[in-house]
C-alpha cells in the first residue's frame, strides 16, 4: 500500500478577503490561509477607514468635535455624542438638568436599538436571510423617523451638546414612540420567528466563533460579545451614568460565548432598550433641557438678539470655545458594541490637547484570528457579523 497523499501536490491557498468584499463591511481585510476550506491562519488588516478623528478634534473647539463623533459608530451616532458630552462635562464639573438626562437616555436607547437592528439584520443578510434583514431595516427606519423628528437628522444626528441637547423633544413624541414601538415589536416577532428557531440559522451560529469568558476579558471584550460569554458587565449597571441607576432594566447574558448567544443577547437588549425608553417617557420631568451657564452652553437665540450680556457670551463661546480646566478625564458609556470611552486632555484652552476614543470593536476585532482559525471559510461571515466591526469606530 502506498500512501495516497504522497503524490498529491496539496498546498495552502492564500486568499485576500476584502477590503472590498461583501462580508467585510466597514472595510477591513482578512489575509486568510486556507487548507481546503479550513482556515489555517488569518491576519486582520484594519485602517482602511482611518480619517484622523483624534487629530481633527485637536483642531477645533470642544463643541466642534460633535459632528466627528457622529461618524465613529455611525449606526448609533447619539451614543457617541452622549459619551463625548459626558466626558467634557465631567471635566468641566457641571451638573445638567434632569430633563436633559432623560432625553439623553431616550435618544441613546433609540440609537442602541438602531445599532442592534442593523447588526442582527446584516448578520441575517449575510447568511442569506434577506427578508429578516429588510424587516429590521424597516424597524430601523421607524426609529430613524423618530430621531429625525427630534433633531432633524437621521444617521449623523449631532444632537447632544455640552451641557444640554440641541433642542427639547418635539410635541407628541411619547405617542409617536408608542405607535412606532408597536410596529417594531411586530417586526421583531417576524424576525424572531424567521431566525431564532430556524434550524439552518441555528446550525450556522451555534458553536461557531465561541470564546471563554476568561479569554474574552483578556482580549478586552465589552458589550454584547462579552455578555454572551456570561460576564454581566454593562457600563450602564457597573458605572451608572445619567439616570440609568433609577431605571429598571436587565442585562441579558449568554453562556457559551458563541455567535448564537451574541445574537440572543442583542435580541434581548432590543426589548430592554424599549423598556428603558418607555419608563423614561413616563417618568420624564418638565423643565429646562440646557444648563443655565452661558460659558458652557450657548445662550438662547432670542436672548442673544435682545440682551447685551447674552450676545457677549455667545461671541466668546463661539470664537474661543468652552475652556475646561487643565487636566485629563476618561468617561465610558455603553455603546452599541460595548464600552465607548473618551479620554480627553485639556490644557485650559478652547481646544482639546488630546481626544482619544476607546473603540469597543477594536479590542474585539483583534480576537478574530482566535475565533476563526480552525473553522471553515464560511464561518468567518457569522463571526465577523456578530463582532460587528464598524470601520468608523475601529479605525477612527
Amino acid at each position, binding site marked *: 500500500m502506498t500512501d495516497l497523499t504522497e503524490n498529491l501536490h496539496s498546498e495552502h491557498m492564500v*486568499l485576500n478577503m476584502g477590503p472590498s468584499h461583501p462580508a467585510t463591511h466597514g472595510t477591513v481585510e482578512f489575509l486568510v490561509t486556507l487548507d481546503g*476550506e479550513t482556515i489555517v491562519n488569518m491576519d486582520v488588516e484594519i485602517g482602511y477607514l482611518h480619517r484622523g478623528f483624534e487629530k481633527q478634534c485637536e483642531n477645533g473647539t470642544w463643541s466642534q468635535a460633535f459632528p466627528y463623533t457622529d461618524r465613529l459608530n455611525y449606526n448609533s451616532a447619539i451614543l457617541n455624542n452622549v459619551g463625548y458630552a459626558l466626558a467634557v462635562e465631567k471635566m468641566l464639573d457641571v451638573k445638567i438638568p434632569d430633563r436633559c438626562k432623560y432625553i439623553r437616555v431616550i435618544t441613546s436607547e433609540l440609537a442602541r436599538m438602531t445599532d442592534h437592528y442593523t447588526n442582527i439584520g446584516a448578520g*441575517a443578510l449575510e447568511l442569506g436571510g434577506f427578508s429578516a434583514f*429588510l424587516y429590521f431595516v424597516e424597524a430601523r427606519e421607524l426609529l430613524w423617523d423618530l430621531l429625525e423628528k427630534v433633531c432633524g437628522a437621521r444617521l449623523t444626528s449631532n444632537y447632544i451638546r455640552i451641557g444640554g441637547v440641541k433642542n427639547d423633544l418635539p410635541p407628541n413624541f411619547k405617542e409617536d414612540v408608542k405607535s412606532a414601538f408597536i410596529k417594531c415589536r411586530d417586526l421583531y416577532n417576524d424576525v424572531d420567528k424567521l431566525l431564532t428557531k430556524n434550524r439552518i440559522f441555528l446550525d450556522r451560529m451555534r458553536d461557531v466563533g465561541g470564546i471563554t469568558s476568561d479569554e474574552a476579558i483578556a482580549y478586552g471584550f465589552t458589550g454584547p460579545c462579552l455578555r454572551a460569554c456570561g460576564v454581566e458587565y454593562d457600563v450602564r449597571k457597573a458605572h451608572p451614568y445619567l439616570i440609568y441607576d433609577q431605571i429598571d432594566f436587565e442585562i441579558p447574558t449568554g453562556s457559551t460565548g458563541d455567535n448564537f448567544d451574541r445574537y440572543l443577547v442583542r435580541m434581548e437588549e432590543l426589548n430592554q432598550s424599549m423598556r428603558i425608553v418607555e419608563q423614561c417617557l413616563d417618568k420624564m420631568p418638565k423643565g429646562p433641557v440646557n444648563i443655565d451657564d452661558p460659558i458652557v452652553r450657548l445662550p438662547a437665540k432670542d436672548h442673544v438678539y435682545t440682551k447685551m450680556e447674552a450676545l457677549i457670551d455667545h461671541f466668546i463661546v463661539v470664537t474661543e470655545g468652552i475652556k475646561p480646566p487643565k487636566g485629563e478625564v476618561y468617561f465610558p458609556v455603553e455603546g452599541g458594541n460595548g464600552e465607548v470611552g473618551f479620554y480627553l486632555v485639556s490644557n485650559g484652552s478652547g481646544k482639546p490637547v488630546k481626544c482619544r476614543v476607546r473603540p469597543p470593536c477594536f479590542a474585539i476585532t483583534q480576537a478574530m484570528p482566535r475565533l476563526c482559525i480552525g473553522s471553515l471559510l464560511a464561518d468567518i461571515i457569522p463571526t465577523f457579523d456578530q463582532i460587528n466591526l464598524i470601520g468608523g469606530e475601529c479605525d477612527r
Partner: protein
Amino acid sequence: MEDFLITTAKVLFIFGLNMGVFAPLLTWVERKQSALMQDRIGANRADILGFSMIGLFHPIADAIKMLAKEDFIPEGANKIMHTLSPIICVVPALLTFAVIPFGGEYVIGGKHIKLVIADLDVGLIFIFAISSLATYGTVIAGWSSNNNWSLLGSLRASAQMISYEVAMGFTLVGVFMVYGSLQLTQIGAAQESFFRWGIFLQPLGFFMFLACAIAENKRAPFDVAEGESEIIAGYFLEYSGLKFGMFYMAEFLEIVTISAMVTTLFFGAWHIPFISSALILSMLSFLNETLANIILMLIHISVFWVKVIFFIWFQMTIRWTLPRFRYDQIMKLGWKILLPLSLANILVTGIVILILQ
C-alpha cells in the same frame, strides 16, 4: 412530414415558453415575490414613455444591459473553456424538458397526438443523464476563470451536485417502483385518479426530491457554490454580460424544469382532481371529436402550467425565507440524512408493494 411538423410545433411551444416567457419573466417574478415578502414595492423603475407596467419592462432592460456590457475574459483564463461553460450550463437546462409531458394523449383529426417532444421509455434516466452535464459547466467555469474564489465555488458546486445527484436518483426509485415505469408520459397518465397522485403514494419521496432538486439547482438555502457573502459569486464571479446572463438563465430554466418534474411525478401531471378526461369529453359530447379533444388539450395544458407556476412560486418563497447552509452541513444533509432516508423509502415502498400484490 406531418409528424415532423407536429414535433416542430411542440419544440417551438416548449422552447418559446421557456426562453420567451419563463426565463425573462421569472427574473421579474423573483423581484416581485421578494418585494412582496419584504414589504417593498419591488421592480417598477424601468418604464417606456412613463408606463412602468408594474415593472414588466425590467426583463427587457436586463437583456439590453447584458447585451451591451463588455464581454470580459480575465487574464490567465482558459479562453475556450471560459466561453464554453455558460453554454454547457444552459443547454442541459433546455434539453431536459424534451421528455417532460405537458399534456396527455389526444385524438385530433384521427391522429393520436402525445404532448411531449420525445416520449422516451427511459425518460427519468434521460433527465438524470442530461442534468448531470450541467455540473461540468459550473466546474469548468470556476476552474477556467483563474480566480481563487471561482475555484472555491466550483469545488463546492462539484461536490454538492455530485452528492445530491445520488440522493435525487434514489428518491425517485420509489416513484417508478409505484408506477412501474420510467416513462414520464406513463407516470403522468397513471395519476388520473386523485388518490393515485405521487404525493399520496410517495410523500417522503416528494419532500426529499424537492430538497435534492433545489440543491442541484444551487439555489438558496443550498447556494453555497454562489454564496455571495462568502465567496462573492463563486464559479461565475469572472463572467460578465450575456455569459453571466446565461448562468442566470440556466438557473431560472431549471426552476421551471424542477417544477414541471414535481408536477409530473407527484402532483398528477395534467390531471384535474376528481375530474377525469372522460368526464370532460362526455360533457363536450355535443361537439365533434376533434374539437372536444382540442378543448380538452387546452384545459390540460393550462392545468399543467398552473401547477408548474405554483411550484415556481413555492421555490421562490423558500429562496427568500431561509438562510444559507454551510458547505459541510450540506454534505452532511445529503449523505447522512437524505441518502439513508431515500434508501429506507425504497425499502418501505418495496415491502408495501409486495404486501399489496
